[in-house]
């Protein structure tokens, strides 16, 4: 069954996917470590702690130390996953990730819940809208956000197999489950959900399901949409973006500042190729606030309606 025909009824936060997958990985490989910074419960590593205490470290509320400690572990052959919230995992430990993880290209994973606007009622201080942009600018770093539970599990599994730094971003809140267990995902390769002739929509993370709904609506209106889940924004799948350029029109959708995230990564490819037009839908270079998640998306135009409107305006 095509993903467009599915009725999306079940929802799950992608932080749950990390929590489940990391236990599986940890059991398979004793070198997989989790480093917590006191927020294990909300980052969903409680099962790992219970079942694999020998592979777990909790450094308390000390993120900078967590990143450096992970680097030290990695030099001995461990594969540490530092588990925290995206604001801290990208910014509080940014320099430690740069100096001690990315510069020596060590095998450390930064696995972060509370990506984008998803910690909605926590307010602007806890909503990471710039994390992927910051980490995208560090050499050697891979930057990933899965769209749902299943894809996130697969991407976490693959991240563990890459010998180098990876930043993984998860949702705090529940998002619709899009994919079956059988779907495969490759880091650095866009997942094509639908081919089309008129316009391309490239989305990632918790906005993929919105892009999917918008695609259905546009198809009803007679617009042929090509839809990509760009779960990896670095390295960006250039080939996939170039293919979209054949349509001349691209809309990017992301739960991240429109600066430096998916929209920017796609625009860089488009600008270098010298043809085509991009419209970026995402956080409008403004901080969030405490509000329902859907309200925050709406305040930034990250909605099905706005994607449809933007597409029609480009045609």
């Amino acid at each position, binding site marked *: 069954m095509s993903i467009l025909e599915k009725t999306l009824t079940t929802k799950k936060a992608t932080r749950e996917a990390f929590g489940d997958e990391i236990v599986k990985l940890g059991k398979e490989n004793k070198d997989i470590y989790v480093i917590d910074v006191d927020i294990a419960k909300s980052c969903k590593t409680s099962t790992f702690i219970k079942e694999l205490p020998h592979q777990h470290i909790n450094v308390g509320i000390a993120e900078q130390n*967590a990143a450096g400690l992970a680097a030290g572990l990695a030099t001995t052959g461990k594969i540490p996953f530092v588990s925290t919230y995206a604001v801290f995992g990208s910014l509080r430990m940014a320099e430690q990730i740069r100096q001690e993880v990315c510069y*020596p290209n060590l095998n450390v994973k930064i696995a972060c819940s509370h990506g984008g606007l998803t910690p909605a009622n926590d307010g602007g201080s806890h909503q990471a809208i710039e994390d992927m942009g910051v980490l995208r600018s560090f050499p050697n770093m891979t930057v990933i956000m899965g769209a749902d539970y299943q894809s996130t599990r697969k991407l976490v599994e693959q991240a563990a197999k890459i010998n180098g730094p990876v930043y993984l971003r998860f949702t705090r809140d529940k998002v619709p489950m899009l994919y079956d267990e059988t779907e495969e995902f490759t880091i650095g390769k866009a997942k094509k959900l639908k081919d089309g002739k008129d316009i391309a929509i490239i989305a990632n993370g918790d906005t993929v399901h919105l892009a999917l709904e918008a695609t259905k609506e546009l198809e009803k209106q007679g617009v042929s949409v090509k839809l990509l889940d760009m779960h990896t924004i670095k390295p960006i799948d250039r080939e996939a973006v170039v293919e979209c350029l054949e349509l001349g029109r691209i809309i990017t959708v992301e739960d991240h500042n429109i600066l430096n995230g998916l929209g920017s990564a796609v625009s860089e490819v488009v600008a270098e190729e010298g043809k085509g037009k991009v419209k970026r839908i995402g956080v409008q270079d403004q901080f969030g606030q405490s509000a329902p998640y859907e309200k925050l998306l709406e305040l930034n135009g990250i909605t099905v309606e706005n994607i449809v409107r933007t597409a029609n305006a480009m045609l």
Partner: protein
Amino acid sequence: MKNISIEELKEKAIEMRQTAVTMIHKAQSGHPGGSLSAADIMTALYFKEMNIDPKNPNYEDRDRFVLSKGHVCPIQYSALALLGYVPYETIYTLREYGSPFQGHPDMKKCPGIDISTGSLGQGLSCGVGMAIAGKRDKKDYRVFSLVGDGECQEGQIWEAAQTAVKYQLDNLVVFVDNNRLQIDGFCDEIMPLQDVEKKFEAFGFETKRINGHSMEDIVETLDEIRELKNGKPKCIVLDTVKGKGVSYMEDIADWHGVAPNDEEYQQAMEELAGGLK
């Protein structure tokens, strides 16, 4: 551990200092002050204490060394060059394009560097990670880390310290190069550290404070703590003099990161040849 006498170590320390000053002079760039204050402990570690193998720099069970105050790498590079990790002539390439001797230690470019450092306050955390791995894997290796007293102004040092105590890392030894100076002047004026030994002790470390330029004291202390498996990480505060061994550099903050000119270099080499007074 290697068998080497204190007298031989003192001779090595002379070579270490001369090599460091030579490379900084050739590069006309680098950090002589802290390299010289750290010279004696570095000599004792590299030529006696640490279980390392220059022919096999990455062997799994080796002792690890983390130069948290990465800018004094010329003294570490001196050890690596004298021990044969790299050809001795490498000392003439410090800070040059393509050199394993980067401005700050780079584990990907230089054999014998266990972790890249350079941004103050961060190395000790890496050392804690290595020491935890050693404990979990039931390995006998130890982890040695040199931090600066000025560097202890970084909060992350204390994050790492509390973690070392929590995980009972008696395989970790932290040396504080207590030379009392930082770039802008005396540490006590810039940001007083108070009694750094008491601070580490309060965190739960086994501590000791010694003259960091007495090879006798250094060796005696290393002997004392070698087999001390009491569940406590160790902190040895080394009272040192920045620029030690070169009269015009001693206790002068301005020699933190300045290279000697030709005349100053000649004088330094002559003074160093006589050993520490």
